[in-house]
């Protein structure tokens, strides 16, 4: 697709150079880019959904490899792939069921299925619906290769009804239209996630509460604003979140809204945690086991909260929900940023010159961006779909993503 490639390359470059940061912005721009890809994709006459999915996969592969730490990119790519599958299967299943009602005996069916025992339309429709869900115990013993069954019946319906070329292109446009509409819904969902999450603030924050947060998360900020709107009286301890000290910015914003705020250093968190009722923090990504990738320092907050039995609440939009399992998150899902955040080059440049015998400098500075919080330390996830426990994440994942999209790779063209 020559039309879309410059857009894709531009976005890939932005991701590589970390010009666009933050899950929300990244997710939104990825979704918009994929919508353009879909709308400019030329639909073939057969196997449209697979070709469309392939196009998305090839673009997705480039985007994900540009910044593998930014999990929101992969999330949106997989959501779009799932959308394509959903729209395709639901329209075909509807078609089959409609057919079984209108047509009684169909010669095309028998002639087409010599090597396969004759299957009624009801079976095919139910298998079509099952194919959408993740593999389960119910379908363990089933064997129908759904795609071939569907395509066979789809082609036979085409022959028996004598559909014209016009009808076929109508079906083509319908799939594209449905997918674009669904991606539009996804973009809206990403945009309105703050409002949906903030609606739940009233149930969580009661009178005279003391809340602790780390750094500055936009979701947490909106959450606290909403509680303040509803006249809840609460105080906030903001841990500054070194080395970027975004907590200072959040403190200022909260004071502007009339919230009583206290700024503390990260090292003071353990000392203050016993005076706190609840910890509310944002996340960079939520993994499939319920673990959280969050700004550095969050694991410490979670451990302190567990020690003093303080509820640890994570607020995050559903575009942050990632279907992958964290195998070695401290290493593989982390990024080391520039040491200049910690040490001033001017003062320390002479330390960099001293080296050991093999040439490595004596002074090393490690500045990781993220921290991994294991699921057992999290009490509650507040997402735009409501409040859930960490053990429930798998359900949301099976709703939003398909099992075979975990590795986004272009399938070989047939």
């Amino acid at each position, binding site marked *: 697709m020559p039309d879309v490639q410059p857009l894709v390359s531009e976005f890939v470059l932005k991701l590589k150079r970390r010009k666009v940061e933050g899950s929300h912005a990244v997710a939104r721009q990825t979704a918009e880019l994929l919508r353009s890809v879909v709308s400019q994709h030329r639909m073939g006459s057969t196997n449209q959904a697979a070709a469309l999915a392939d196009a998305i996969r090839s673009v997705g592969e480039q985007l994900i490899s540009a910044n593998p730490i930014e999990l929101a990119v992969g999330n949106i790519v997989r959501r779009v792939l799932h959308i394509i599958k959903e729209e395709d299967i639901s329209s075909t299943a509807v078609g089959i069921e409609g057919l079984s009602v209108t047509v009684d005996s169909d010669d095309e069916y028998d002639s087409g299925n010599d090597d396969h025992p*004759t*299957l009624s339309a*009801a*079976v095919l429709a139910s298998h079509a619906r099952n194919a959408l869900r993740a593999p*389960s*115990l*119910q379908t363990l*013993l089933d064997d129908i290769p759904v795609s071939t069954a569907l395509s066979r019946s789809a082609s036979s319906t085409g022959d028996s009804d004598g559909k014209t070329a016009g009808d076929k292109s109508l079906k083509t446009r319908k799939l594209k239209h449905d997918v674009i509409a669904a991606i539009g819904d996804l973009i809206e969902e990403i945009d309105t996630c703050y409002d949906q999450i903030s609606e739940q603030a009233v149930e969580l924050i009661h009178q005279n509460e003391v809340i602790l947060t780390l750094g500055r998360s936009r979701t947490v900020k909106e959450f606290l604003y909403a509680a303040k709107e509803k006249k809840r009286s609460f105080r906030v301890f903001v841990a500054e979140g070194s080395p970027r000290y975004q907590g200072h910015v959040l403190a200022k914003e909260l004071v502007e809204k009339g919230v009583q705020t206290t700024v503390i250093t990260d090292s003071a968190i353990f000392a203050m945690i016993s005076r706190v009722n609840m910890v509310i923090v944002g996340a960079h990504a939520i993994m499939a086991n319920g673990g959280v990738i969050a700004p550095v320092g969050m694991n410490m907050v979670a451990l302190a909260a567990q020690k003093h039995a303080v509820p640890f609440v994570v607020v995050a939009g559903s575009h942050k929900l990632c279907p992958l399992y964290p195998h070695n998150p401290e290493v593989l899902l982390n990024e080391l940023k520039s040491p200049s955040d910690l040490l001033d080059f001017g003062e320390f440049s002479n330390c960099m010159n001293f080296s050991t015998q093999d040439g490595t400098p004596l002074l090393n500075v490690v500045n990781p961006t993220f921290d991994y919080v294991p699921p057992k330390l999290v009490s509650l996830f507040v997402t735009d779909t409501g409040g859930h426990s960490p053990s429930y994440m798998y359900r949301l994942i099976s709703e939003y993503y398909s099992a075979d999209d975990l590795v986004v790779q272009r399938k070989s063209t047939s």
Partner: protein
Amino acid sequence: MELDAAQNPNPDPPISAYYQTRAEHHAVVSSDWLAHAAAAAASFPDAGAGADAAPPPSPGSNGGGVIEEFNFWRRKPEAAEAVAAIMALAAVIRSSRATTMMELEIELKKASDKLKSWDATSISLSAACDLFMRFVTRTSHLEHEKFDAAKSRLIERGEKFGEISLKARKTIAMLSQDFISDGCTMLVHGYSRVVLEILKLAASNRKLFRVLCTEGRPDRTGLRMSNELAALGIPVKVLIDSAVAYSMDEVDMVFVGADGVVESGGIINMMGTYQIALVANSMNKPVYVAAESYKFARLYPLDQKDMTPAHRPIDFGVPIPAGVEVETSARDYTPPQYLTLLLTDLGVLTPSVVSDELIQLYL
């Protein structure tokens, strides 16, 4: 070893036939056994058929025949217990003279109940029987076609279950590869074919890792496991069961199989698994369970004694005085809070997913 066809061979004291079979298949081996096994494995399809007698004659309407059929398939060391059960039920369908789905279902139910009562201790047996029964009921409601077509489909699916089981193991092995990183040390307990498959695949992908293997008394199936691992060229260290806590700090992760996965997400496995999980949990080591999905059972044990007792004779090497009791249970229950993840052919699951799957299947 001749087994009484219609009755559990050792009714008093109640010895679990399931664990007896496992011990026969996987217990201590000598080096010449290993050589013999290696030669046999090279020509496995033939060796298996040649070693056993010809399959027993079709059961007909004689209920006892399903047990014979089951025992025939169970003898094969590579096949899972569940596969043997479903093959036996498929054979019942094949030889059935029913003319409607309802009759067939009733016959199958009788055969399935007979199998379950023959060995009440085997969880994968009863889970597989229930799974097949559900499949039959669903098939009969869904398809408005001729009875013979439905019957042949059921037989075909039942006989294909052996392939499904092997495919399940391969899927689990593939899913687990990401969890094994270079330079890691893992602890395994006893002999599990699924875990062995995982380690085989990792070794063939040239991953560098080390395995600590417990002995697994009283069957000492862990020794068999260590033989197999050594044959694959994986560095193995054998521990006595009591040395697990001692070695736990050098371990990065624990891999166990399961005899059954219960509704709470916990597992029932060879005696010693609970102990290992407790130690691993207290030292913050992840415990991964590799289990095929057909082992999910509708059981909910609340404590260790809440299951059908399954006993194994234990040989201490010296005679035990008359008044002294011996704990002979062959298995224990590990609650879900000590397990990190379940690696199944349905994907990587947290323990809370199990009840969801079972509800979808049964309700």
